[in-house]
């Protein structure tokens, strides 16, 4: 117990409290109420950053819900070895999380080397790299990268949840004349609800924190992508370029609140985590 408590306090609790303290004070440490929040809200980059992040998160969540649930249902009921192979293939890109995945996708989005150059041409209308990362495409591109690295894990989780459905329940439904689609919609989907809710809340909270992807793409974009594309990037720029730690803290607190609300919802409502015996 002893060595863990200081870590929990110093890197779990204290940063949050310190950020709160900074967010409600000025450089001199004087109490300023919500001034920093209002000030950063009125920053011309604030709303667009949050809008970007929101669009990205919605696209990503939509893809996760439709494809993860769909693919898990498709995999369920396949011969075991076929299904295991597919699950492994879907899951493998998870090893490339973080900056490596973004680099891989920079290549994939560069029509000159990408194996999908015909898709880039027909779907995005892009013949050169700069057109691929046009501002309107970015939320979709980031959502795709996040989906590419993370969806496989969720598919495996959903598949696991599906396997808990008692076999005789499915059998009974079949005898009652339910086809595979009816069984999927009426029986399997409701039993996955808890896991889907968990995935949605967790991904929503994670999605709003987006930083790595836009930060790296911005480096490769020749000034095309602003360095304050996402909310976390804006906070980072406030702290690093303008040394406005109070403003950065205010945005960090905004984001932290989203994460906290999500976490508390999951812990208290989902029943997936054990907090007592």
């Amino acid at each position, binding site marked *: 117990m002893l060595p863990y408590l200081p870590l929990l306090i110093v890197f779990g609790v204290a940063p949050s409290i310190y950020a709160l303290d900074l967010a409600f004070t000025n450089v001199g440490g004087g109490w300023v109420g919500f001034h920093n929040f209002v000030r950063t809200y009125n920053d011309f980059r604030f709303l667009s950053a949050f809008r970007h992040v929101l669009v990205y998160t919605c696209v990503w969540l939509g893809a996760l819900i439709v494809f993860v649930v769909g693919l898990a249902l498709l995999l369920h009921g396949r011969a075991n070895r076929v299904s295991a192979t597919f699950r492994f293939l879907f899951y493998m890109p998870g090893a490339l999380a973080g900056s490596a995945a973004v680099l891989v996708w920079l290549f994939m989005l560069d029509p000159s080397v990408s194996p999908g150059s015909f898709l880039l041409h027909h779907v995005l209308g892009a013949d050169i790299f700069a057109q691929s990362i046009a501002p309107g495409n970015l939320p979709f591109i980031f959502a795709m990268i996040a989906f590419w690295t993370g969806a496989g894990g969720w598919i495996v989780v959903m598949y696991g949840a599906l396997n808990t459905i008692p076999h005789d329940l499915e059998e009974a439904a079949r005898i009652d004349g339910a086809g595979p689609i009816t069984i999927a919609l009426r029986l399997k989907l409701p039993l996955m609800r808890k896991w889907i809710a968990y995935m949605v809340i967790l991904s929503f909270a994670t999605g709003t924190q987006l930083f790595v992807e836009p930060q790296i793409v911005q480096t490769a974009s020749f000034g095309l992508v602003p360095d304050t594309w996402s909310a976390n990037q804006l906070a980072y720029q406030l702290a690093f370029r303008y040394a406005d730690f109070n403003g950065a*803290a205010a945005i960090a607190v905004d984001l932290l609140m989203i994460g*906290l609300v999500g976490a508390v919802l999951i812990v208290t409502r989902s029943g997936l985590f054990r*907090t007592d015996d």
Partner: protein
Amino acid sequence: MRLRVVGLGVRLTVLAMFAVFFIAPVVWLVLAPTKSDKALITSSPFSFGDFHHVALAWKHLDAFSSHIFRRWIGNTLFYAVSATAITLVAGVPAGYGLAIGRFPGRKLVLSLTLVVMIVPGAALVLPIFLELNAVHLIGSSLSVILPFAFFPFGVYLAYLYYATALPPSLLDAARVDGCGELQTFLRVALPLAKPIVALVFFFSFVADWNNFFLPYVVLADSNQYPITVGLWDLLSSTPSFNPAVGGGGQSVKIFKPELALATLIAVVPVAIVFLFSQRALVRGLVGGAVKE
């Protein structure tokens, strides 16, 4: 019957299409370093070049900024291994204490652990930066290792394991035999926790290895970068994606094959961990949640 065959065909086609989406970029990445920068554009994306080009790409990559690439890999190993070691030393006894002990504040510590575990890591990066900045720890390797070492998920896994899989009678037996609390933990509980130690090691190692945001924010000297931030540094020094670098790229000789090789090397350790612990890692996503 015919309808079923068609249904099966549709199912398999959809699955195969997604498999291509997930795997094609990985295959491309593995093949890319075998080709020259020019061949990457002219030859078919999935063709194999030759090993000579891999060696050449490595030569250029290794020469970049006087062997800094090796340094980045070394740094990453150092950060990930030392943080994971602290995670284990601090986390496993903590999980044990939370599961076995009855002390005031236990529920509070447990709830805090859970909440911090689920709050996305990125939400805490800037607050941690602001805090470290206030105590002037920025730029030290401790500013990466210590926050990495705080790994509530590991504590929760250990807690869950001790709370569900360890029979209390075993501990009582040890105590009757004259073991003190510390000895009971070291002699009985710890040896039983081998699977959980392995699990926590994997999760913590992978999370630390892949982390970009925190080291990016708290480290200033490129000699201290882990490989994730190193890749970004490499990207910003090549004209391949960053025309601003212009002629500078010619002198550093970092082009697409070198960049692909660097990315590949950067993910190999994690890919190996993934291959060997697929099932275990999946349990991590479920957050060690209630039995499936």
